Each structure stands twice: as C-alpha cells, then as structure tokens.
C-alpha cells in the first residue's frame, strides 16, 4: 500500500468508515519536518497491510484541520472504527506511529 492523500470529500469514506485502523498525517508543504515524516510513513505503508495511512494537507483542507483542532504539525491522528484513538505531535519514528493504534 501507499500513503493516500485525502480531502474533506473522501475523509469519511477513507478514514472514518475504514475497516482497517488508519493513521492520518496532517501536514503542510511549508513544514519541513512534515515532509520528513514521509519516508517513515512510506516505509510503514509498504510493510504493513493491516493499517491504512492517509495524509491531509492542512492548507487545502482547513475545515478538517479546524475540526480536529490541529495547531501544531506534523500531527498524526490514529482512527479505529471512526474514532480517534491516539495523537502524536512532532516527528515520530515507526514505533511511535504504531503505538498510536
């Protein structure tokens, strides 16, 4: 699997109604550390078929960012069955990402 870019339009289908646990990466292009999360998330997405990893651009998707109270990025939010189960602010390694689930 690859990291899937989501928007307000498909957030519900891809994240809230996902049958697998989801890690949503809230990021912006101007945020260096956010872009550096990408190799970590790519590595995880390639290794783990049992989770889904999505990314949300906070500049393009302001409503989603506001809904989830994002004021610090990179921010990873884990969802299971449509509910938030964990959140990490700042750069995270693979184990810290997996701990959110």
């Amino acid at each position, binding site marked *: 699997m690859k990291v899937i870019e989501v928007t307000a339009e498909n957030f519900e289908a891809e994240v809230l109604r996902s049958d697998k646990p989801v890690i949503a990466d809230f990021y912006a292009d*101007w945020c260096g550390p956010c872009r550096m999360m990408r190799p970590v998330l790519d590595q995880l997405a390639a290794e783990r078929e049992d989770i889904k990893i999505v990314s949300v651009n906070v500049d393009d998707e302001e409503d989603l960012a506001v809904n989830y109270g994002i004021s610090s990025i990179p921010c990873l939010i884990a969802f299971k069955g449509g509910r938030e189960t964990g959140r990490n602010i*700042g750069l995270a*390694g*693979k*184990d810290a990402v997996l701990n959110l689930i």
Partner: protein
Amino acid sequence: MYDIIIIGAGPAGMTAAIYARRAEKSVLVLEARSYGGQIVSTPEIENYPAAPHISGFDFATKVYEQAVELGAEFRFERVTGITDGSVKTVTTSGGSYEGRAVIIATGSECRRLGLPGEDKLAGRGISYCATCDGGFFRKKDVAVVGGGNTALEDALYLSGLARTVYVIHRRDSFRGDGATAARLRSKDNVKLVLNSRVTALEYGDRLTGIEVTDNDGGVSSIPLDGLFIAVGRTPENAPFAGLIELDGAGYVSASENCRTSVPGIFAAGDNRTKEVRQLVTAAADGAVAAGEAIKYLEGSGF
C-alpha cells in the same frame, strides 16, 4: 550483518554513511524519528560553506538523498541498546541488527522548561519548533524563551509572522550570534524581556499567557497565544550509558578522533564532548568517525 551501523540520521550520521559507502562498506542507518536531526528546524542556514541560504530541511534532504543514492540503508526505528563483542548487536524497537562497527550520532533533544502544564500544552500553544508551528500564529502574540542561536533565529522567523514577539531571556545579553541579535533588535514588533524567567504557564484548554519573574523578584503576566521554548538541548545517550563512558552532562567522552571507551564504537556530532557544536563540525565528525570505523574494520581482521 553490516560493516557499520550508524545510530542517528542527522548531519553527522548521514555524512558518516556517505563516507562509509564511498569506502564500499555496507551501512545501516537507524533513526528514531526521521532523517535530518536538529538542523531541520533551522529556517535558513547562513554559515555552511558554499550553501549560504539553504533551509535546514533542504540541506537535510540533500544529504539524505546523497546517502541513499550511495547505497546506505535507512530504518526508522528507535535504538534501545548495544551489546558489545567482536560483532556488535544493536537492538531497536523493531528488532536487532548486527554490525562490525557502530557509530553513535544521536545528537540531542530539546530541553523543557519543567513547568506544570508544559507537557499537556505541547501542541496547544507551546511549541519547540518555530519553523514547524510559526504558521499557526500569524498576527498573534507569541513569546520565545531562551538566549542562544536557536532562540534568536526562532524570534527573527516569528517576527515575520506574528503580531508581537516577546523574547524572554534570563540574562541581560544574548549568547547567540551578534548579527542575528542586531537584526532582532531592529524589528518593531519584537519586545525584549531581559533578566527575566518564565515562572508559570497560564492556561485553560490552551496556553493563554505566561508569568514572568525578573531578577529583582518583580512578577508580571504576559497574555500570549503561543510560547516557543528554545532553552538548549540535552544529549540523547541514555541507551548507551552502561556501555560507553559518558561525561557528567551525559555527552560521550570522545576526543577529535571520535573513539569511545569501547573499541569499534565511535561517537560523532552533538552527542559527544566538544567545543563547537555546529552543522559543519557535525558533518566533519561524520567523516572522521567513518574513517576511524573503516580503520578499525581493516585492522580487526574482518
């Protein structure tokens, strides 16, 4: 089995990877977060030869791509310890890896103020990275606490975004670079609060302000939307404390040749005892440590 396992993918670790790969050694780089290290939170590097205006992120990305292109393998796992022997075993959160030599280039992490509420407010008004979070404080009131280069650069960066930037520093002059301090003093929206410490955080769900106490004992309150903490860093050597010699402050006791107290284990960059902790000295350490590791491998019969 790898020839060299490098712990930490900052400028020191990734430079070591480049030198080791060019000497045709197999290299695994283990990193707890992602590549780059501390330099990624610098908005603009102005003191690295031949790259006068590059961002920390762009710099780190170029070094990463260079190391990957040369064949270094990266795994994003946190190292929990090393077992010594003629072959060294490095354990991580995800498994364990064997290497003939190890370079520890773990750098350092942000020091906290240690005030009640600080952990809970991280991401709710408190930040340790101005370039990451500055964008959320456009036209708002923020403060930077600290007096070194990071604090000055953060304040300068934020002065272009925020309405007001207070700089809280416990002394009457800055330890950081004079040119940056001068530029900061020329900004109309920067207010220096010197000889003062942050003594309490004011908050509900989010940070709402700080209590500041000056060196004469005068207490005042500053309403704020954001507080950026830049009060220095501490080395990340805890997993190695029982194996190699550390100094009183937790830095690896290693001289300019980057050798630690254990043969075959080397230390490079900000996590070792040294006089100057700069990007260029971290990169230099990477080259020296790789060279020493290669010498060790070639002399140790492998």
